[in-house]
């Protein structure tokens, strides 16, 4: 079908503007589609509608002043972005983090990852036309937001991590609440599996639809569940361990098929793995400080070039810092995963039908403010 379309140059095509306001793009993303009937001849994502110059802001503010910005890039897994930035600055300035703080970071980040995947699950099935799972997923996600609110003080755009630690310690209520939540989600996931994953309509819509080959994923720099759904076994947590991730026993779900179903399964399996990490972290949680004994008053990294990557819910998030030794960055580069993941959409969607392409787009798990930064 693909070849046929391209040969027939006399076919009349039309341009369809998908977005900037469209229910399937989940934000202010515009995709310019050249269509032949319902077949996509060419797709070109047009970015920048909500560009807020976070990188430039990082150069104009002190190191600490940039902290709240991190939570506003990917509002669904804000803590991973906090973590990436904080870890990069700590690496640059040589700040030690107490062990308890590292554990708290891991617990909260993994909870945030589950909440992000839950929301994706609901929104993705909504893209496919099933409305109900969204509200069930929101019900579960609400529990995580309550837990995180009790410790971080906010529900969405968290700013919980500080250089050298975290700002608030957890209490017993949080620990029992988290354990109860894990117990609850372990009961809910099989239900989602039975009601949604095994639904014949869903399988027909995802299986063998929107294949992304290993090679294509590599060429575009795809990371996270998109890459792992294409058979690339790469997870920053496992392969370049940071924080205390090396102390936990967890698996990286990898699927070889590369279709939308594979990406779906990766995320569903990742929730279970995140729960395993949280359980182990709660069991091993050491006593002690959550911030360095001597309060950090002024952060001034040595002159130099530093990089730190973390595994966010959507893939590898990297922060590159160029410091000139002053109290703000000389250059701050944020490598956001969805930007790379979206860039393969043009090639992957060629020759597909519109609804299939939208299923593919949903399976990439786009968060637009993070693409535009």
């Amino acid at each position: 079908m693909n070849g046929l379309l391209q040969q027939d140059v006399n076919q009349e095509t039309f341009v369809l503007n998908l977005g900037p306001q469209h229910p399937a793009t989940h934000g202010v993303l515009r995709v310019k589609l050249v269509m032949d009937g319902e077949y996509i001849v060419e797709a070109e994502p047009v970015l920048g509608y909500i560009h807020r110059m976070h990188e430039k802001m990082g150069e104009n503010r002190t190191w600490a002043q940039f902290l709240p910005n991190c939570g506003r890039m990917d509002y669904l897994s804000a803590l991973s972005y906090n973590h990436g930035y904080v870890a990069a600055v700590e690496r640059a300035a040589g700040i030690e983090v107490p062990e308890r703080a590292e554990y708290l970071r891991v617990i909260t980040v993994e909870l945030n990852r589950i909440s992000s995947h839950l929301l994706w699950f609901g929104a993705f099935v909504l893209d496919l036309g099933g409305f109900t799972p969204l509200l069930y997923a929101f019900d579960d996600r609400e529990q995580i937001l309550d837990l995180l609110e009790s410790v971080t003080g906010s529900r969405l755009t968290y700013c919980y991590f500080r250089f050298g630690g975290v700002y608030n310690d957890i209490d017993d209520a949080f620990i029992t609440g988290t354990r109860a939540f894990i117990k609850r989600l372990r009961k809910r996931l099989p239900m989602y599996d039975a009601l949604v994953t095994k639904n014949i309509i869903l399988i027909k819509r995802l299986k063998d639809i929107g294949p992304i080959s290993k090679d294509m994923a590599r060429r575009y720099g795809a990371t996270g569940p998109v890459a792992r759904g294409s058979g690339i076994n790469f997870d920053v947590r496992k392969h370049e361990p940071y924080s205390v991730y090396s102390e936990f026993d967890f698996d990286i779900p990898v699927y070889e098929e590369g279709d939308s179903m594979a990406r779906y399964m990766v995320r569903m399996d990742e929730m279970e793995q995140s729960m395993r990490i949280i359980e182990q972290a709660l069991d091993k949680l050491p006593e002690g400080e959550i911030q360095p004994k001597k309060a950090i008053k002024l952060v001034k990294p040595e002159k130099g070039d530093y990089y730190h990557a973390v595994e966010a819910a959507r893939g590898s998030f990297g922060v590159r810092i160029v410091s000139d030794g002053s109290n703000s960055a000389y250059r701050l580069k944020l490598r956001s995963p969805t930007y790379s993941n979206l860039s393969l959409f043009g090639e992957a969607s060629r020759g597909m039908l519109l609804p299939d392409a939208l299923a593919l787009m949903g399976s990439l798990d786009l968060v637009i403010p993070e693409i535009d930064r």
Partner: protein
Amino acid sequence: MPEPFRVILFIVFVMAFAGLNAAYLVWCERKGAGHIQRRIGPKEVGPFGLLQPIADGIKLMTKQLFLPKGADPILFMVAPLMVMVPAIMSFMVIPFSETFVAREVNIGLLMIFAFASVNVLGLLLGSWGSANKYAVIAGARCVSQNIAYEIPMLITTITMVMVTNTMNLNEIVRAQSGWFFHWHIFRLDISLLMPVAFLIFFVCSLAETNRAPFDMAEAESELIAGTYTEYPGMGFGVFFMGEYANIVIGCALSVILFLGGWQSPIPFNPAGFLGVIWGLFWFLTKLYALIFTVIWIRWTYPRTQFYELLNLSWKVLIPISLFNLILTALQIKIFPWL
């Protein structure tokens, strides 16, 4: 009652029924969806949110009837009526009870199918007239979907006409009198595939009325609102009423052809006015049970893929319904005494 008055009275009743039904089916849909999704649904306007449809109607009526740039003014305005009016017309022949029917037309079944086909034309003209690319895609989908689904639906209907020997809807219902196992869906002696035929008919009526999981024509996550994308205010409202009226017609036909229409499940039929109420009660019970199933399906399943839908029709439903037609013909021929 003298004939002209009876018909006029009935027309008024039918129009009120269609209008109120559309309004309150929206309420049922939203309430049902709410409970399926562990929410409450509408509750603010009136007790249990019962006045919500009226509030919605007033809201839609007060909106400006905005004509999009480049739209065809005549087609754009006429299209909603072309969906609504035929749907109301179809109510004229539906027997709500043995005597509770506007006109016992001998070709009632044919008439309903004739009017049901106009519905597609309305959707197509509406999407063409609104000069919107999403709407045009939806219109094209709508037409190919309806063509594909009318075939198995009509083949199943032909089978039923063969069984009952009539196209008069009331006669079809009378043929199913007695115990509930005399309803056509349970008449395995006529055709072994009767329950399957019912399923085919029901699935086709879902597809005909563009209901989930076959709601390609208004797939909100793909085509924004499909055909209705450009429609403001009551233009959209009338389309919607037409859609719901069509759902009622589709379910009513399923009830009449397969589930015994106004027949009660036990052979007990009081005479006179009480009999009318008795029949009405059973007809509406069965009708709304089916409509609830339609709503239930919508909030349970994701949308199918377009080519899967056509595959289902051409590769599964049409062969099975044709086989059923032949099987039924043979069974009628071999065991004519049944």
